[in-house]
């Protein structure tokens, strides 16, 4: 349990993603239009790496033949069999009740705060007071 600095914010710009390991877990971190999302990298279906999947919108439809494009890039599509997962809830679109991927709390913190805190675990690179960092809580 703890905080993990997984990247310098500058290294995870908008539209990018990163596969990281912390406490033995493999986690996929996404920056979607400045918002960060972190999920288990392993697809709950058969284990495809979600970090290598395609971000997509959710097309919804009220009647057959209508297509409404919503929530662009807020879903990750597994590269293996195409199941979609909501980055906000971790729930799959096809079976939201029982098939979901674990979410992690992720945010950006300033280096100064991080250095002041003594709770950091397993840093793999130096934290500088003047930069921002992406932090995951496990």
């Amino acid at each position: 349990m703890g905080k993990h600095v997984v990247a310098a914010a500058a290294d995870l710009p908008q539209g990018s993603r990163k596969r990281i390991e912390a406490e033995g877990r493999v986690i996929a971190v996404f920056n979607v239009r400045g918002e960060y999302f972190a999920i288990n990298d392993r697809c709950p279906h058969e284990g495809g790496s979600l970090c290598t999947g395609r971000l997509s919108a959710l097309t919804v439809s009220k009647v057959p033949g209508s297509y409404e494009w919503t929530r662009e890039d807020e879903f990750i599509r597994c590269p293996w069999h195409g199941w979609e997962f909501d980055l906000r809830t971790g729930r799959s679109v096809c079976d939201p009740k029982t098939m979901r991927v674990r979410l992690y709390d992720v945010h950006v913190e300033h280096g100064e705060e991080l250095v002041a805190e003594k709770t950091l675990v397993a840093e793999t690179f130096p934290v500088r007071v003047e930069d921002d960092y992406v932090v995951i809580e496990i």
Partner: protein
Amino acid sequence: MPLASEDKSIDCPIDCPIDCDVHPTVPGMMALLPYLDPHWQEQVTDRGILSLDSIAYPPNLDFTVRRDLRAKGLDLAGMQDAVFGRWGAGQAILNCIYGVQMVHNADMGVAFTRALNDWIKAQWLDRDPRLAASIVLPMQDTPACLEELDRLGSNRQFVQALVLANGEEPYGKRQYWPIWEKLEKLNLPLGIHAGSSYHNPVTTLGWTNYYIEDYAAQTFGFQAQLANLVTEGVFVKYPQLKVVLIESGVTWLPGFIWRLAKFWRGVRREVPWVDRPPGDIIRDNVRMTIQPLDAPDEANALQKAIDQIQSEDFLLYASDYPHLRFEGDDVMPPNIPDSLHRKIMIDNPRATYKRLADMQTDLVGVR
């Protein structure tokens, strides 16, 4: 009917089995002549159209008509003797399979179909209050289907509309939606029966030579129709519409649902209106008759398929008179679990064909 005699909670006619697939035999085009207008009467006689038989159900084959039933005669009396007498049904639904769907000339097809429906009403329905029937739809022409439903749909003796598993186009296509809309309004299920208009080959590979292939291939037609109805969103648009697969076989369904559901999970974006697993939709909107089952004979062999379909409301009792489905008088196949007999014979048909309940009330009144 072992159940009717052994289980005292079942008391005719209210608590008798409902036979959901009985075939009246059309003796030939001459029988339909009185129901055609003069123009079509002349066409039939001038062209010498004697019958509309196809490769399906070769009329003299013992498989098409059981020997003992043929000997009794295939008229109303013969049917009553078997279905209501020996087999103990309290009500029966007539599904008339006659080659009207094969006719290419849409006007002729519509005229023949109307005549067929009128013949069913006059020669069968009006002569026995225990009988209900399907309105045969002239699928050559969508507006004509609507007219036929306007003409007959409010007659409570008709409890279903009937099409063949293999028609001109898949039934989920939007040109057919006005028909499904009307059926939903009228509270009439759509019955899809084995058979073909033979406007397309029965297999996607092309035409085959033998009757055995033709009959076995019906399953593919049912599967394609089911997939098409689901993916085109017919049940999203018309959620109350019930579809009954008649003489479709049963045991292919779990595997097919599995396949459809699996692919839906991965590519459902293409059909976003299908917003729940296809199996759930099929369970809510589709039913099947029990003859044939396509399952081994041993007791309870069907339990697994029923478990996989995850519904006990799914199967409807049917003798498939006069086709050869079983010897003797045990309509209920031995491989169906006993615990389901009542549901299959009575509760499920009643829930599917709401209009039968009204007819039952009338029957009791008569008694």
